């Protein structure tokens, strides 16, 4: 083995260099726009451009329709996301530890990823024609995103070592306790992660709900979410309240991420 010559650049710096392309791309296409949004939220008008600092935020907070939209979005995240995680967890448990030949069923759950937005909205409109509550929107959200969560979770299950199960079975643990005690804590990082992914896709599901309600900018009260609020303000050239509400959403997201990480630190052994 020839002795490796001492490379001038320390290993740690080399790893940093790997980060550079992504960092450059992120700054150009994500960070600068984000700060542009911050700047827009601090000026009074897209055309007159004089600073009013927090007026926009105050105005947005007091706007009753922003509160309504914020409430609806929060409800969507607090109800639909857990429901999604639970259902995808149970399905992936059944898939991974059930019959071997049932594995092929997993393809069915990935299909919603594949269906185009227009057809999905059309099918939802035919199934839930005159349902007068928010359920269809939640179901649409779950239906659309269950595929990703199942893939993540089943992939996580594959990493668990079989020997762990043999040991548990030996001391007579029943199926349910095995899952509660061992499998779930083991895949807790993936669980947290799918929660984050689902929250991201809760913003992406806007296009389908928009078409489901027939392309109107003002859906029934219960499904008037933040995206509708922002979209309408965009059409009304009121970019300032849109920017302010955008900053609020990123704060909301920031809080959720922090909670997620804290939970994860407490659970990982």
């Amino acid at each position, binding site marked *: 083995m020839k002795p490796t010559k001492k490379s001038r650049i320390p290993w740690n710096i080399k790893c940093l260099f790997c980060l550079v392309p992504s960092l450059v791309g992120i700054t150009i296409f994500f960070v600068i726009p984000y700060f542009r949004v911050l700047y827009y939220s601090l000026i009074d*008008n*897209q*055309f*007159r451009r004089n600073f009013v600092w927090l007026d926009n935020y105050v105005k947005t907070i007091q*706007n*009753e*329709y922003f509160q309504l939209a914020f409430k609806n979005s929060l409800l969507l995240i607090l109800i639909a996301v857990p429901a999604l995680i639970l259902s995808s967890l149970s399905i992936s448990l059944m898939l991974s530890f059930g019959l071997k030949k049932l594995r092929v069923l997993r393809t069915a759950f990935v299909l919603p990823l594949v269906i185009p937005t227009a057809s999905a909205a059309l099918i939802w409109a035919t199934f839930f024609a005159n349902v007068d509550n928010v359920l269809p929107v939640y179901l649409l959200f779950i239906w659309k995103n269950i595929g990703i969560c199942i893939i993540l979770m089943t992939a996580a299950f594959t990493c668990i070592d079989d020997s762990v199960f043999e040991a548990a079975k030996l001391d007579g643990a029943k199926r349910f306790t095995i899952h509660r005690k061992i499998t779930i804590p083991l895949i807790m990082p993936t669980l947290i992660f799918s929660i984050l992914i689902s929250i991201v896709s809760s913003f992406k599901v806007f296009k389908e709900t928009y078409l489901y309600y*027939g392309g*109107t900018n*003002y859906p*029934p*009260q219960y499904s*008037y979410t933040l995206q509708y*609020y922002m979209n*309408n*303000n*965009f*059409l*009304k*050239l*009121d*970019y300032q*309240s849109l920017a302010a509400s955008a900053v609020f959403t990123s704060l909301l997201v920031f809080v959720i991420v922090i909670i997620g990480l804290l939970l994860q630190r407490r659970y990982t052994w």
Partner: protein
Amino acid sequence: MKKLISTVIIVFLTLSLLSSCNNDKGNKDIINYDFHDVKINFTADDDDFLYEMEKDRPILFAIDNNGYLYYNELTQNFMKVTVLGLDGEKIDEAEIEPIGVWESGEFIPYPNGAESFNCIAVKDNVLYFTDSHPFTRDSTAVFSYNFNTKEQVKIAEIEGFNDVRKIIPLDGKLYLLGIDERLSQNINPAKNNYKGESIISVALQTGEHETVFDNMPFMMAETEDGVLIISAYAENGGYYFKKLNSENIIPNDNLNFSNSEEPNFEMYGSENIIHDSDKFLVFLPVDGNSETRVIVNNLPSINRKNFAVKSGYLFYETGSGVRRIKLSEEVNPAVLNMAHYSVLPPIIENFGFGLTFEQIDTYELSLSLLSLDSNYDMYNINSFSDISDNIRQKGAFYPLNDVPYVNEYLNAVFPYVREAAINEDGDIWMLPIYLHTNGLLYNEKICEEYDIDIAQLNTSEDLIEILATLKSRDITEYYDITHPQFFFERSFYQIMRKNNEFNRDDFREMALYIYDNINYIKDDWSYNRITSDTNPYPLIQVPGSVNRVADLRGRYLLYRRGVGDYHMQESFNRALEYEDYDDDYFWANLGKVDFRYFENYKHNRFILYPSVKAVEGIHVNDVTLEFITVNPHSENLDVVLEYISALAEYQLNLENSFILHDEKTYSMDRHFVKDAYEILNYEGNFIRFSLDSELIYSDFEKFLGDEITLDEYLNRAEFKINAYLRE
């Protein structure tokens, strides 16, 4: 495995790049040139001269080198040519003896021979003209008339050649462009408009003729320095230019000739002017580089066959004679790009500016405004689009206060239009172009026959009452003037005008009123008619029309008709142009008006369409306004403001503009103009902005169809309207 995947991916990439660029370049029609910039503009009025002539038929004219005008009166049986000098005084006159054909030694004049003359040309005081035999049309005779010696000579007779479209006398020969019989049979159809033309040259002394060019020519012209330029269709579409006795000039193959019937072009310096659609003269450099330039001018409608360019002047035939305009070298730098919101671009004059139009939707419009884009210079918006009022509130405009003529123009328009054009802090944020509202057209005589007194018809109750009486005396078999959507729309604006937030009782009252009085059949919301006789007002489709009330014999009693929009202005201008204007010409032009239904149209009158309820005592009428706003971030702002002031000045002294307030600018002797003016001058008019009844259409329809209760409808409407207003 990896190699396989990588090869497949590479195949994808090459294929998609390939497939996207090989869809064949459809040949671009001349109309949608990519206009680069405007080089030549018509001058101000002093160099604009009109040779007045009373004439009832188009004339043929030619210009000689020192600008004298030779024109030919196509009288019954012989040709009289008069020569006019530069300021229109008569210099010379010639009577050409009757044209006929010598058959077996006997001269047989053509009875209505004069019509058969195709075109005339003049060179150093000798006139050349051709005529095709009026019956056989298979041969063309070429004549010359010398103004000095006053003698007429038949130079030649060419078999199998007619429809001569151009004569060019050039160094001892005459070049004729016409249809050649043997060529006009089998031609490849779908490519272009070639009809079998060819170019024949006739020697002046000897008269023998030979074909000079027959490879699909469509026009020819002569440059100032005496060179013959031919333009011909290229094989794969488009066309190219060719000097007569020299090599091909580079073909510019991306230009396809327009579909105009009579192609024509003249030479001006090193460029040629191709006359295309009525409004455009296009300057195209002959050497074929694709940099094209357009001169856009306010020629009302140039006769395509008949225009000539000589010694820096453009001559063209108009209704009242031949007009001569000086072509000046003044350069207009920028071509302005106007984004328009409705499907059709606005019909406005361009005053020598290059104008291109592009249609955009609300999302693109907000994106363009918010991102301070400069790719649009002006926006043409109508007031019922959701964005119109937001532009005013958010300041997304360039104030036009100090643009010349704009202030003057706003003082001259109707007060409610002026009020709409100026925002709270005094900025003029838009330039109004034309208005549109709804009027009720009724036929005085027929209404008298059925003793309907229109005077007391000003609310919807009266209208419904009249229709009920008509129904009871089953005079009228079918009408469809009371449509729920229309009544809903009018009352929606009247309510929102009074209190600009959701007022539950007004909406409840309106909903109940329409529910009881107006009949609604499921799924018939957007203006299509229903054919059922279960309801009291039988609504039967009148063939090919909406909103009409006709009696049993199909004669019109009442008809809902737009007032004041550009159709009216357009048809009015055209009517005026031909002086023989009278009512029926006007009516025939007012959109697709089917004459059978307007028997004695002279008795048609307009009144304001009855409104649903009074607001503060006056009956209110919503008017939509078409206007232009200027993009403050446009790169060629100064040219845009120049255009806006030209447009304002043009609108300012427009006759029968249906937007100006001053009565003297309207020909009040014509009763429909007077009626239309009264409607547009009604004090209850207001411009409705942004808030569109579309917001709660679908809920109202569900309520009418009993799918949801009244309260449910009111709750939904409340949420939607208040959300829209207070978001």
